[in-house]
């Protein structure tokens, strides 16, 4: 008998029983939607090449204001709704960021410093300055994010240290996660005696043409397909729905038969069926398509076309 095997703390079979299938499915979903940088090369040409380029540019220009406006609105909501008695939150900033306005709110309470991002479009240098003023070794970076997750914490890295740790502050209805939830981290609680270093990554509004690094649900509020029932419809129908809103599809993801991973395609036949979508960049959506549905994933998770619970009727 192999003595190393006897030391095995948990077998694969036992581990598989520890987590429910829907938790793993939600994680997979979040990864696909959040880890939005699988291909770092130059953007591929739009799938519907028949559309004149200048027409596409014009439509996109019309959409430029949307994510920024959402970002500012989200920042405002965070600043107002998370305010509790004793907090010193300033006036809500809904216009262009003012140079002198605080970009973070710091509130000391019960041995913690509560940090909320108030202005997700501010210059990162100003975050560093504000953390330094508060004697915190915290780096805050911003990644381009799709509208429904702008202003939320998308990633957190912590340095060594066994002492008190940073914990996220969550808020309801500030964003809509890939798994269909609406409770999202919008800030952090830092113990006053925190001695480690941390990097916080928040979603910010994307600039025109900039690819999202973090994305919410394609049919979440403020997103390209808000209110649309697209799952199970043909690619041609979905493209037409998107075109009405001025959105294009730069790439498709197609699962090859018998393989675990997706294939990237610039075009797919119009009669294929769409089973998922992800915001890709301002004015662009990525579609998952297959010849038949439901699609069987390697993990055993079945993705079937069903209306999203977050999509309103009609």
């Amino acid at each position, binding site marked *: 008998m192999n003595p190393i095997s006897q*030391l095995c*703390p948990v077998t694969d079979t036992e*581990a598989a029983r520890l987590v429910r299938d829907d938790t793993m499915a939600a994680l997979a979903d979040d990864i696909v939607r959040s880890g939005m940088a*699988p291909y770092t090369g130059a953007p591929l040409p739009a799938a519907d090449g028949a559309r004149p380029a200048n027409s596409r540019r014009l439509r996109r220009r019309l959409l430029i204001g949307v994510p920024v406006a959402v970002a500012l609105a989200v920042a405002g909501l965070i600043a107002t709704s998370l305010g509790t008695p004793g907090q010193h939150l300033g006036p809500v900033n809904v216009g262009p960021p003012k140079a002198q306005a605080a970009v973070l709110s710091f509130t000391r309470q019960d041995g913690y410093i509560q940090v909320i991002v108030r202005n997700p479009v501010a210059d990162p240098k100003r975050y560093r300055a504000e953390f330094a003023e508060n004697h915190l070794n915290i780096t805050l970076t911003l990644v381009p994010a799709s509208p429904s997750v702008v202003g939320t914490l998308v990633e*957190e890295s912590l340095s060594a240290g066994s002492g008190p740790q940073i914990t996220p502050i969550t808020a309801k209805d500030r964003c809509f996660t890939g798994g269909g939830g609406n409770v999202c981290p919008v800030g952090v609680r830092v113990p006053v005696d925190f001695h480690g270093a941390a990097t916080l990554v928040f979603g910010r509004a994307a600039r025109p043409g900039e690819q999202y690094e973090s994305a919410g649900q394609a049919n979440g509020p403020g997103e390209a397909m808000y209110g649309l029932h697209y799952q199970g419809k043909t690619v041609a129908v979905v493209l037409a729905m998107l075109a009405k809103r001025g959105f294009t599809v730069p790439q498709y993801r197609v699962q090859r038969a018998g393989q675990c*991973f997706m294939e990237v395609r610039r075009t797919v036949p119009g009669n294929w069926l769409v089973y998922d979508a992800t915001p890709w960049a301002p004015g662009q959506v990525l579609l998952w398509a297959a010849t038949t549905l439901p699609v069987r994933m390697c993990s055993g998770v079945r993705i079937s076309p069903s209306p999203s619970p977050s999509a309103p009727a009609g």
Partner: protein
Amino acid sequence: MLGYALRRTDNTDDAADVLAETFLTAWRRLDEVPEGDQAKLWLYGTARRLLANHRRGERRRLALADRLRAELALTYRPPDRAADFAEIAAAFRRIPQPDQELLALAGWEELDAGQIAAVVGCSRNAARIRLHRARRRLAAEIGRAMADMSPAGDGITNGDHA
């Protein structure tokens, strides 16, 4: 992959983070992930590097692992290791970390030398030699700890055919 992470971390939070980050890395580098059985080895290799970062104190907490973290904290209870294996467990912890990993890949993931080579990024021959040395080091540790007991060292080298 969850089993791999749980077997190598002290707490479920770290296992959840490693699992989530492994798959996030895979998704971001989809074009590098090999097909078929090789994909699993690629994932083990990625998880191994992330765990090494964890051990160096570079913990990375991903918001997307929150649900998994919460669920594992409720469901996972580390087993009480049988007293029979306490000495072997202690000896195992005393050998260098790279040796532990080689023996674990053979004993826990049941990989052969060729598969271990793919995970740790060396030739098949090098993996076989390193595995052999790791077994000898473990046997020596056990021998030191159990000098007055049965020759467990022989049992190790004969029993582990990976």
